[in-house]
């Protein structure tokens, strides 16, 4: 009997639907990292992350910004010679880190996703201005001003919604969501 599940096993469990090969099949060839358009902004390359997962370096992996910098473009997935769904693994790591509440400081991704999920649960549709609250606080003053300018431009051209929308069948929708995850009473 196994005393403790390996980290790669745990991550594999979170990659439910994609039907790719297990990450333990990785050849460490580097195709994923050679392809990744965002790799310059990652502190570890995708291949390195897989290596770290297999070496059970859980803390280091969760503390990395790599998987939060993944844009889900899936280019790595289609090129991987071992047919591992690398982008899905990045999602699995995001899920793991959200579940444990463990991630690098200063990242916008976790707050953004959480806010997005809450927003949809509360209304069934997305509403951009609400999401701004998640990232603006982390921006520099200069960036906040620029963002404001862009937003104004969009409003003037009628491309920024000013009022949030709600779907009609919201109550039933929320009951549907409750059957997947417990959400308590909506705010």
């Amino acid at each position: 009997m196994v005393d403790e599940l390996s980290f790669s096993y745990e991550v594999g469990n979170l990659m439910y639907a994609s039907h790719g090969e297990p990450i333990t099949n990785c050849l460490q060839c580097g195709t994923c990292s050679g392809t990744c358009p965002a790799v310059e902004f990652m502190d570890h390359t995708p291949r390195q992350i897989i290596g770290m997962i297999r070496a059970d370096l859980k803390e280091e992996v969760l503390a990395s910004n790599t998987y939060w910098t993944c844009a889900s473009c899936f280019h790595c997935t289609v090129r991987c010679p071992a047919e591992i769904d690398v982008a899905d693994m990045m999602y699995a790591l995001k899920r793991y880190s959200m579940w444990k509440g463990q991630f690098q400081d200063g990242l916008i991704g976790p707050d953004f996703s959480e806010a997005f999920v809450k927003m949809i649960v509360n209304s069934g549709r997305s509403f951009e201005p609400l999401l701004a609250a998640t990232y603006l606080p982390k921006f520099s003053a200069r960036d906040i001003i620029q963002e404001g300018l862009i937003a104004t431009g969009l409003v003037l051209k009628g491309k920024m919604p000013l009022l949030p929308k709600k779907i009609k069948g919201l109550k039933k929708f929320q009951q549907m969501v409750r059957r997947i995850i417990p959400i308590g009473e909506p705010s």
Partner: protein
Amino acid sequence: MSERIGVYVCHCGTNIAGIVDVADVSKWAGEKLADKGVVISRDYKFMCSSLGQELIQKDIKEQKLTRVVVAACSPHLHEKTFRNACKGADLNPYLCELVSIREQDSWVHTDKAAATAKAKAITSGGVARVIHHEALEPLRVPIHPATLVVGGGIAGIQAALEIADAGFRVYLVEREPSIGGHMAQFDKTFPTLDCSACILTPKMVDVGNHPNITLLTWSEVQKVDGYVGNFAVTIKKKPRYIKTEDCNGCGICWEKCPKKVVDNVFEAGMGNRKAVYVPFPQAVPKYPVIDDVNCTYYLKGTCKACEKFCPTNAIDFNQKAEEITVEVGNIILATGYDLFDARRIPQYGYGKLANVFTNLEFERICNAAGPTGGNIVLRDGKTAPKTVGIVHCVGSRDKNYNAYCSAICCMQSLKFAHLVRERTGAEVYNFYIDIRTPSKGYEEFYQRLLEEGTRFVRGKVAEVTNVARVPEEEGKLIIQVEDTLISKQRRIPVDMVILSSGMQARHDSKDVAKLFGISCSADDWYIERHPKLDPVATMTDGIYIAGCAQGPKDIPASVVQGAAAAARVLGKIQQKEISLEPIRATVNEEHCSGCRICNDLCPFNAILFHEETKVSEVNPALCQGCGTCVAACPAGAISGTGFSNEQILSQIDGLLLLNISHAAVPVDN
């Protein structure tokens, strides 16, 4: 009246005895199967050992046994051993039955009591069956001393020479105008850096001159009839449009020919040939062929320059294809490989970016007789590269293309690195996942390349692009790759990229296999009889495979396989006669209704239909005893010696003797 049966139950160390109570099974058989004819029942640690076999032989003599049942491992392993043991004691070997209580029992169950009960049932089945066995004699067929070798590459050449040197006739059939295969295209060979043509052409000349080799180039096999020792092969000799009796190989015809054609075969598309041509100067035989698809005479009816200038009047535009049939006893298939098409990986830019080359194209560049006279230059034909990137594993080790490793690309890539360095002094990068240098002198070759200053980057190339992001990249090809040893994505500008494309089975390997009655694997390579212990034989007696047709390998290994196949053939020829297993199907003519359902079902094409008498007949030499026809015949007219209905039904009855229920161990033992 009743048979005298000996039962031997093997411990196989702990393989069987660890799960099955072998002594119990033996005791049970002796007691409970006595009324079936069992007169003696023993168990022993290793039945297959000499002592174990002697045990059986002693009993046969002393107990006057008429049947033997051994309960041990799978017949695949030791059926022959025990049959021979019986033969040694003058009991017909086919009166011995080996039942598996290892692969079918002890190796697949953990419940000891249930496994022991199952072993008893299996043994009981064996006993019930063996009573119905008949004494059979193997078929003896004569072996025709001639051999057919298909494919004139290095493996085929080696095989042909070995057999011909031993004094027997060989028909060597080659699809191209000359023998030589892919090896003739290379420049230098690893790890010795021997000039490929220099070591190949002496063998080619030997083949061309050999009195025992009938060389049939520009020919293809059309049909194969018969069976081991007695094949009748129909070969189509495509028209060369040259009268070989008159041609002296002077070369005036191709010199004068005005029609240039891109040579996609030998020059890998890098150079031209004429419409009348020999593929390369050292061609064997020396006779050219006319390419009737591109020749002006066949397209428009004009020109005929070759005919005008030929000093011996050897051109014959009206020459027709000729079909000949040869009789041979054995066949060796050495049909080689095709290159993986690098266009299937668009991100490497082959076909779009001019200075991306495949390995075969680069071989032609390096070759002194090639399109650039041996100068390593870019597509423009004149600029020497200052930096070269060599990409390993193109189309290999990749589940998106071919999952296997192509065995030779690492060495080939190292060889290229050396040649580039030596001839141009350019900076060389090799991009690899692993460096695979297993054979003699190979690792040392890698060390040499390290000493020469080759820059190795461990990473599978993600993209080759011409989109520059910084000034240093302008006008270059940029290789984008993760340097995994430093965990950084790098963009390395080079002038020339060489893709080490992998090997694949020939595009028509499945068709060829079908023609000869053998099979292909999932990757379309021909399948050998056993991957470890019998790599040159196939499941079809008399057909052997050698060289890359069996899977990617280097030249030494191809030569070895060619020689091995030749040795097997010579062994058969030398025996003059071979015996075939008598486990065959036979058609009872009286019961055959002529429905012919069996004809097409036979995987070995062993069933003939007689039009006059309207009955089918099984050719015992081709039949492998698979039983498909026996099962399919609606009239039950086909029976198998060694697996008759009687035998099988009795075995089932024997198996059910114990009535093992789902729950647990049977009550009465």
